[in-house]
């Protein structure tokens, strides 16, 4: 049985758990072992094949490791995880960490694997009308020995009570190859709550990253999420958004620029279960070399979800013949008084724009860089933390002249 290494690792892992948790964890492991890693035979995993992971052996990660020399964001609180373990010294709000992960029965084998091995994570719970004063930066730093790459499974929970507000930034910084990381974020927004969530990854191009965000949105609540993929070898993101009560709103934006050999699969699923909800999705991809990018955008409008207002747009630049993009909207509409728009494009840089720039003296390579920057800026600009936006742009090779533009806007006003 190819999953043997996981079963062995679990015994080692379970020994360190409080006895009360072991049975529940073992149950989750059982689910994972029964189902195995998803294969492309499952429709939801059509484009991403994880079966090779089954034969791999990941060492359970030892606590500790060295903190990265990174300049942290100013005016921001932080939880730093080194290989899945909280670094208290470098975290400004360590009390927000929780070890427990009493997950509900997982509905897919990756989620079960995550629940079985979870080392916990953020547990943010805001009371009614409470507002997180500063953005919270949750950094997952991964660096394990090349000879025995590790696996990290984390589970975060965000619960905002009525009219509470928060900004949470999840960022993956991976330094070593071969690792496996899974992350599940459970979000629950009560009436009128507002959450801004950024999920950013600059993983090692030899690493595997599997994430999932499950959100339930209550009446008139709002989720504004931006996801940026710069790195990673094999990456899969699942977004499950349930617009459960009237007036809820979700805005989900994404930008991916996979590494030359990388595979990035974004699967979004937005369920309109109540009337008068609004969803906006906008993804953009720059896919070059031998990279592969997938976007599947499912929107389900349930019976009775009248006055649904939904838009989904995905635009890809395919810059090499050997690169591949699959962009697929999937709409299931069971109500009749709704507005649902969608559009998916895969194309090249605009030749006429390139020509125009060249006619002004701007050489081909620079002209292309200008156009790519403009393409990405449409998503990057949705990140409301300027410092973060700038570092992401640099990371993605899309650094703009924002500083210059800002100065210019002031001077010319």
């Amino acid at each position, binding site marked *: 049985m190819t999953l043997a290494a996981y079963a062995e690792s679990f015994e080692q892992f379970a020994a360190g758990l409080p006895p009360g948790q072991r049975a529940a964890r073992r149950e989750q492991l059982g689910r994972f072992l029964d189902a195995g890693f998803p294969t492309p035979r499952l429709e939801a995993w059509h484009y991403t094949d994880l079966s090779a992971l089954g034969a791999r052996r990941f060492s359970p990660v030892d606590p500790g490791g060295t903190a990265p020399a990174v300049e942290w964001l100013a005016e921001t609180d932080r939880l730093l995880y080194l290989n899945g373990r909280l670094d208290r010294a470098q975290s400004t709000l360590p009390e927000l960490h929780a070890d427990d992960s009493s997950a509900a029965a997982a509905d897919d084998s990756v989620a079960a694997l995550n629940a079985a091995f979870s080392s916990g994570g953020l547990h943010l719970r805001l009371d009614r009308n409470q507002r997180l004063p500063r953005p919270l930066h949750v950094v997952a730093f991964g660096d394990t020995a090349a000879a025995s790459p590790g696996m990290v499974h984390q589970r975060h929970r965000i619960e905002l009570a009525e009219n509470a507000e928060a900004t949470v930034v999840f960022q993956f910084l991976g330094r070593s190859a071969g690792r496996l990381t899974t992350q599940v974020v459970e979000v629950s927004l009560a009436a009128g709550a507002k959450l801004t969530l950024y999920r950013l990854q600059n993983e090692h191009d030899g690493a595997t990253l599997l994430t999932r965000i499950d959100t339930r949105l209550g009446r008139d609540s709002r989720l504004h999420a931006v996801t940026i993929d710069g790195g990673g070898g094999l990456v899969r993101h699942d977004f499950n958004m349930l617009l459960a009560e009237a007036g809820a709103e979700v805005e989900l934006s994404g930008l991916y620029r996979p590494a030359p050999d990388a595979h990035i699969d974004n699967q979004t699923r937005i369920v309109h279960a109540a009337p008068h909800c609004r969803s906006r999705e906008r993804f953009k991809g720059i896919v070059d070399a031998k990279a592969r990018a997938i976007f599947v955008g499912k929107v389900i409008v349930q019976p009775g979800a009248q006055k649904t207002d939904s838009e989904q747009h995905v635009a890809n630049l395919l810059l090499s013949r050997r690169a591949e993009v699959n962009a697929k909207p999937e709409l299931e509409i069971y109500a009749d008084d709704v507005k649902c728009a969608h559009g998916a494009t895969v194309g090249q840089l*605009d030749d006429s724009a390139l020509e125009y720039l060249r006619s002004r*003296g701007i*050489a081909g390579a620079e002209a292309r860089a200008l*156009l790519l920057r403009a393409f990405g800026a449409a998503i990057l600009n949705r990140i409301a933390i300027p410092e973060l936006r700038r570092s992401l742009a640099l990371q993605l090779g899309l650094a703009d002249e924002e500083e*210059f533009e800002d100065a*210019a806007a002031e*001077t010319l006003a």
Partner: protein
Amino acid sequence: MLEVKGLHATVDGKEILKGLDLVVRAGEVHAIMGPNGSGKSTLSHVIAGREGYTASAGTVLFDGRDLLELEPEVRACEGIFLGFQYPVEIPGVSNLTLLKAALNARRKHRGLPEIEATDFLAWVRDRARLVKIDPKMLSRGVNEGFSGGEKKRNEILQMLILEPRLMILDETDSGLDIDALKIVADGINTLRSPERATILVTHYQRLLDYVRPDHVHVLAGGRIVRSGGPELALELEQKGYAWLEAA
């Protein structure tokens, strides 16, 4: 400055220019007129180096140098500017970014350092005033959501900022109301100098009331069929092109 000799050019395999000769000296303004389809725009694009416009025979010299072997961006850096008939919209790339990149490309070409941001902005603001463009529009994407007249004024603004030596304006006057036409003409006249030359490609005589040409040429069937002074433009306005084509 510009010497075109026996130029034949094809677009999509079809021969449009069939042995065209033209000499433009520094300080001169040439108007090239002619009916639709006569090859006016093709001439502009061949000089600027647009892709798909291939010279199959003849020579084009700029300051004695073979222009046809240069990339379009090099021609621009050497001082050739083409004002487009249909300027392209480039959402997300601001006018300022384009202008700064274009100006610095020229400076680099001449071995000069990049321009200081404050100097650049002062220069741009000064020039924008000439064409009555609100400086705030400069922060918007290139021609993004601009009206036809705004796009043409924006072309002239770019020209004023980049200060080319040879300005080629491809039907910049078409579709403009009289106020916009005057602004465009002012822009051209501002740059007019003994060191610079201008080629106005136009279908109508109207622009020439505001920018007085030294030479007027009539292009028909891919060749210059007649050349003269400003009076030729007036004659064309009255008689149309038919009498020349018949000749």
